């Protein structure tokens, strides 16, 4: 199929994509879901294994209660109904990364059903339904050795607890899909359910997508897209598939019901090979586990100890700190960032100023460094101190930015850096006047321009003072003193 770039407006108006997402999230428990092996990421291969997670003959699963609690948290945060009882089933298929030849999952009695979350795209808030949240176990990790002669398996990952979150087909655009994933990630992080790192595989996303003529409510032929391993891939994969299916429909061609893989290199989706198609998983109730009673008292206890949801926090930031909705959204996307904001405001009660610092500088530096906030030495005390140094006139904003980069890099106190590097603003009138006089004397052209009414020349002269003081001059004082020096010069003439 030819490469497709975009759809013209007419086709876009005529056809509507219908998208549902299936998201797998690894739960951040200390031990695996059916054995007591640790779940530390990045350990030496096959060191966190036991008879249970290796699927040795005779080994039996025992459900990790903590995993259930985290799954419940996730389901409750997504406004799901929790049934009084759920059960586990075996999903049977052969694959080398599946030690038992079946995955313990939940089929017809999941842990949570009928939930929703809200997304906001271009200022419009939409509610996306959550069909179900169920628990299952992670598979081992296949490592394909270069050269393609063999594959290595790391069973450290086998048995790590997962939840699968299945949305209703309520999503209409790739942007909405992205917003849905962002919100989901945010919720999972807030609930301390998962770190949701797509690059480490702790969040994975498959999509079901069909296209139909706008205005109908019949569903088109469903295509499943797999192997979208980044946020960008999800967006690109959906965009590609919408175009492909829309073109087929407008040409009167049928869409084939199939599973397709996103090919990152070629930027296309392509049909998955035959055996990945049409699995008959032969689900049946897992006889090694008893049905799991979800006692309402237990569920209530889990609910009572749940952290605040991102939506709640956003609303609180607007209400209590008087922040614009946009600021609240940016700050609250990551609970660590939101927490940093609140801790800083507690020390330095100027919310908008703190918000500006975080949105402009903190997030930029984090993004450049590719690090989570917790991995940097930056502390709320640092930012509060820096803001105060600016307020007190000790440093100006330009210097503050430089100091902040250093604080971010090595975690030293801003006042210490300012003192050590002699960055304190020069507010000493006599010293600055001396500099101003030299600048006025040394730039006759600019002085001439200023005198002939070109106000811009003043900016140049002040800039020269700043330059001479390496930016440490108090800008207002510098302006006043340049004016004073100019007046002196005129008096002498």
């Amino acid at each position, binding site marked *: 199929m030819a490469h497709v770039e975009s759809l013209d407006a007419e086709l876009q108006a005529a056809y509507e994509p219908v998208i549902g997402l299936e998201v797998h999230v690894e739960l951040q428990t200390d031990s695996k879901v059916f054995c007591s092996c640790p779940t530390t990421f990045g350990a030496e291969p096959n060191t966190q294994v036991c008879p249970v997670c*290796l699927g040795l*003959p005779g080994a039996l699963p*025992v459900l990790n209660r903590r995993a259930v609690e985290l799954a419940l948290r996730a389901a409750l945060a997504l406004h799901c109904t929790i049934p009084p009882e759920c059960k586990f089933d075996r999903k049977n298929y052969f694959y080398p990364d599946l030690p038992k030849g079946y995955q313990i999952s939940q089929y017809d009695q999941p842990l949570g059903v009928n939930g929703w979350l809200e997304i906001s795209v271009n200022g419009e808030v939409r509610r996306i339904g959550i069909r179900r949240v169920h628990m299952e176990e992670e598979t081992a990790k296949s490592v394909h050795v270069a050269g393609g002669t063999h594959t290595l398996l790391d069973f450290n990952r086998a048995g790590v607890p997962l939840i699968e979150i299945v949305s209703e087909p309520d999503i209409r655009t790739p942007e909405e899909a992205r917003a849905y994933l962002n919100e989901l990630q945010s919720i999972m992080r807030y609930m301390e359910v998962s770190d949701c790192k797509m690059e480490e595989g702790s969040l994975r996303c498959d999509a079901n997508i069909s296209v139909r003529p706008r205005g109908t409510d019949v569903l088109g032929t469903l295509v499943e897209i797999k192997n979208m391993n980044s946020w960008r891939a999800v967006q690109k994969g959906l965009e590609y598939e919408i175009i492909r299916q829309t073109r087929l429909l407008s040409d009167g061609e049928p869409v084939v019901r199939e599973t397709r893989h996103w090919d990152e290199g070629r930027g296309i989706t392509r049909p998955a090979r035959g055996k990945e198609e049409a699995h008959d998983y032969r689900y*049946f109730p897992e006889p090694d*586990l008893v049905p799991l009673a979800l006692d309402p008292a237990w569920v209530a206890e889990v609910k009572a100890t749940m952290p605040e949801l991102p939506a709640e926090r956003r609303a609180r930031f607007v209400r209590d700190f008087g922040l614009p909705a946009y600021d609240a959204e940016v700050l609250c996307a990551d609970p660590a960032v939101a927490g940093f904001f609140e801790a800083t405001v507690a020390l330095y009660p100027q919310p908008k100023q703190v918000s500006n610092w975080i949105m402009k500088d903190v997030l930029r530096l984090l993004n450049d460094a590719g690090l989570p906030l917790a991995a940097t030495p930056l502390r709320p005390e640092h930012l509060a101190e820096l803001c105060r140094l600016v307020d007190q006139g000790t440093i100006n904003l330009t210097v503050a930015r430089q100091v902040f980069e250093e604080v971010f890099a090595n975690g030293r106190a801003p006042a210490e850096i300012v003192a050590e590097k002699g960055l304190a603003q020069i507010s000493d009138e006599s010293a600055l006047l001396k500099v101003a006089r030299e600048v006025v004397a040394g730039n006759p052209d600019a002085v001439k321009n200023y005198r002939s009414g070109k106000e811009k020349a003043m900016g140049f002269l002040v800039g020269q003072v700043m330059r001479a003081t390496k930016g440490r001059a108090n800008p207002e004082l510098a302006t006043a003193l340049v004016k004073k020096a100019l007046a002196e010069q005129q008096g002498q003439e």
Partner: protein
Amino acid sequence: MSGISPRDIRGLGATDIAAALRRRELTSVEVTQAYLEAIGAGNAGLGAYLTVDEQEALAQAREVDARRAKGEELGPYAGVPVAVKDNISTRGLRTTCASRILENYVPPYDATVVARLRQSGLVVLGKTNMDEFAMGSSGENSAFFPARNPWDPSRVPGGSSSGSAVAVAASLAPWALGSDTGGSVRQPASFCGLVGVKPTYGRVSRYGLVAFASSLDQIGTLTHDAAEAAALMGIISGYDPADSTSVPEPAPDYPALLGREIRGLRVGVVREGFGEGVEPGVQEALRRALDVLAGLGAVMGEVSLSMTTYALPAYYVIAPAEASSNLARYDGVRYGLRASNRSVTDMYGRTRQAGFGPEVKRRIMLGTYALSAGYYDAYYKKAQQIRTLIKNEFSSALQSYDVLVTPTAPSVAFRLGEKAADPVQMYYQDYFTIPVNMAGLPAVSVPCGFSGGLPVGMQLIGRWFDEAGLLAIAHAYLETTGWHRFRPEPAVSVAGEAR
């Protein structure tokens, strides 16, 4: 050194050996040696054991003797040897399930029951032969060699715990562990003249028992008499947090409850036990046994279990369905046989083709079919509904009666090869035992005489978790009749007995 000859040691039985060890008239090494010698001489002819770990067994025996010499507090059965069915995981000791696919598999861990045997100081002699993956009723499905009935080596010992039954019957072990999914402890016990206990589902931990049909499997005991059964049950029973289906209750003190009163006990004779499929010799032995129970003061009545007819077909949906999934892990990836390296698909196909025997393949196919899309409701779901009805029927019968009685098997031991060609005929061997597994109830097969020189077994079925009640009846019955005192003629001469 004691004055007891190896032959005499083996004639003592587990209880008396334990007593002699406690009185220090024997050492565990002497006892273990006596059995190892007997195995060395007799196993080739009978095929009871697949693996015998002489060195390790003697090391364990020496350890128990040393601890006893130091005056350490030991369990009452410390130093007594035991045989373990080869589908129960033993750390460092090959566990094959009598299958080519696990021919060289050595578990890195002990099953919970094995750990409990070791804690009690029992000495594991070796691993016993069986029908491959516990699928069979004759022992002929062993991938290596069939076990033979010591009462007549041209006949089968029953199955699937064939080797465990043979080992005990031929005094190649004082007692043994088996597993019972549809009759695999009770039917060989019946064929070999032993007491076979199938405990309530959840009473004994399944952790480490290589799964055949998880919702039906239960580890049980094979012994000469009810007192030994009570003792061994006491060692292996009880809650295990590693098995989610194990019942979180301590097991009762079985030996202490053996003397429970029989008089006034309500015994329900299951009418179907005298149906046309049951050999006259078996019926006759059973009738005499019922007379004995009546003579002991039991109140006899009759009950019909009409659902029994449907138990067999329902079992042959559920058990293969679970098996098809349980045996999926034998794929050549991590352990066991790997028959090809060409590609993943080729490895799966060739490994499973070469590794599984015909009966195992048959059941995997049956089960896969029953679980397939479009058939699930018609087969698996329907079978589960039947299972519920069977449970309900037993439940109501056990409200009127304390115990239900059937023959354990419809026949005595048949000849090797006699039923091998007809799987359905073979499946009928478990007609009376399967419903018990379907309901999760406890049952005991008790020797109740002979037909044509071959042992007959009576099955006692009790209420959930009432193994103690069943053992008390078995004990009273055997003490009265003495059927447990009979031993087969040694099939081959036993080393040392000439001394």
